[in-house]
């Protein structure tokens, strides 16, 4: 039985290296039961590696993994965790229904095949050979497979990669409907809008480390910093960069461009402490800001500032 304090996911100091590359670097993350968490980051950020370790498909070089207080293998054996992987193998000469029957038979307790077929919206193709199903249909089958054990934690690794907009919407509505019963869901994605639309909490990961963690609102505010532009001959770049919430300062001749989360503070400083004129504040594109936050040359200071928020 779960206690109230029991965490769905408890990762501590998780580290995984592949030769000289550190894919996951001292990652610590706690997910409470019932949360819907987006694991957001660019390709190669370490999302899949982390999920592999969560499922026991890969062993961490350092750190611990607990899923509802158990090792991944124990959690899987009891059907407490299941996953929809990016590319999971399916046998082409099984039908959709047979794939589910086969998998259901492996659990001590499983939901009925008819029920998960319906939940995943693939009842009509139950008799179709897997090899004849489209990519989207195969992905729905993987989702149905993941539902068989009625898991407490469902992991989705870029589940909609390669789907069109309509397919993505249908897939997520099925997940949403199913998660109403209090299932914990953690999904990896590199689509900002997907994380925004379907998660309660966003964990931003870059180069194997968490760079930001908060509610979608918090992350959006963080990501949607503004750009302050002004004419200021002989601007002191270092002084401006030292202002709170400043991400970058660029000088183009007499023009100074400051990217900052706290644009008001920067504007106040420029207008009261310097000779700046022609001041202009513009919003930054959300997608662009996300790229700035997660790109390899993003300043470490942001990571430190946002990381301490939670």
């Amino acid at each position, binding site marked *: *039985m*779960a206690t109230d304090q029991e965490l769905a996911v408890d990762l501590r100091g998780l580290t995984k290296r592949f030769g000289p590359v550190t894919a996951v670097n001292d990652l610590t993350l706690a997910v409470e039961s019932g949360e819907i968490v987006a694991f957001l980051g660019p390709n190669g950020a370490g999302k899949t590696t982390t999920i592999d370790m969560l*499922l*026991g*498909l*890969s062993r961490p070089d350092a750190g611990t993994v607990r899923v509802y207080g158990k090792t991944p293998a124990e959690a*899987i*054996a*009891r*059907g*407490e965790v*299941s*996953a929809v*992987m990016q*590319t*999971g*193998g*399916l*046998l*082409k*000469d*099984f039908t959709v229904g*047979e794939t589910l*029957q*086969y*998998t259901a*038979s*492996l*659990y*001590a*307790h*499983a*939901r*009925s095949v008819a*029920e998960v077929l319906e939940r995943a919206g693939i009842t009509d193709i139950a008799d179709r050979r897997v090899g004849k199903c489209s990519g989207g249909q195969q992905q729905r089958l*993987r989702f149905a*497979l*993941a539902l068989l*054990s*009625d898991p*407490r934690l469902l992991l989705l690794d870029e589940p909609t990669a390669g789907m069109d907009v309509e397919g993505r919407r249908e897939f997520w509505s099925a997940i949403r409907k199913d998660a109403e*019963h*209090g*299932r914990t869901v953690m999904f990896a994605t590199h689509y900002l809008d997907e994380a925004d639309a379907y998660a309660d909490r966003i964990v931003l990961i870059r180069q194997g480390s968490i760079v930001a963690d908060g509610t979608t609102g918090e992350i959006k505010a963080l990501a949607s910093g503004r750009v302050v532009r002004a004419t200021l001959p002989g601007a002191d770049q270092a002084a401006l960069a030292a202002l709170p919430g400043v991400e970058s300062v660029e000088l183009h001749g007499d023009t100074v461009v400051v990217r900052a989360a706290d644009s008001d503070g920067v504007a106040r400083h420029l207008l009261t402490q310097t000779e700046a004129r022609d001041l202009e504040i513009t919003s930054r594109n959300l997608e662009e800001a996300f790229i700035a936050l997660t790109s390899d040359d993003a300043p470490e200071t942001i990571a430190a500032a946002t990381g301490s928020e939670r």
Partner: protein
Amino acid sequence: MTSSTAQPQTRQVPPLGGLNLTALRLEIRRVLRNRRTLVFILIFPTVFFVLFGLPAKHEVLAGHSALAYIMISMAVYGAMVGTTSGGAAVAVERSLGWSRQLRLTPLRPVAYVLMKLVTAMVLGLIAVVVVFVVGALTGVRMPLHVWLLSALAAWLCSLVFAAFGLFVGFLLPSENVMQYVGPLLAILAVFGGVFVPLDVFSHTLQDIAKFTPVYGVGVIARSPLVGGFTATAVANVVIWTALFGFGAMRLFRRDTARV
């Protein structure tokens, strides 16, 4: 069927590491649906029997009916191809990522291998039965105990090839593994005296043949008909089964440790 509560009170680990008859039944049905597998294990041995056996219907081989002799040989061949392909299926499932998908279920790797082994032996049994039925229908006449003993021997001894299939399956993660293994099996079958009696070869070749993996199976399966059951043949089967089984186990351990 359990009801759909989001949080069952008790979550249990399945018995026998997930090994169960439903999965086995679905697995066997799936394998039998594969046309290529059926051609290799059902059509080829039967066609060979018809091609080589029927023209020799009234001839005598090793003092016995050539037809019966060839029928048993082809049953051995069918069984070895069937069990090998059953075991080698792990290669296909590894290359497709199905084994990885199964790692997300309670199925224990050992239970998975056992299921493959059982499926392989079922394929072997089907191959033997088909050749024997065709043989009976086309005029093979043997005492009942010879039918039973040779069928049983051809089938049980093909365990060596189930182990061989698993070994190859864990060695080569390829969807087309049987394309490489099929010709190899045919060569081994020649050395095992399955396609032609070994005494057409030189003495040196005959001596070498005794150490190849089909030799023992062939001798034991034909012995109810022609005699010649030897300890060498038994040792051949036992040693090769142990070698392939050990090899498969080593590779299997490496495979499960890596993922």
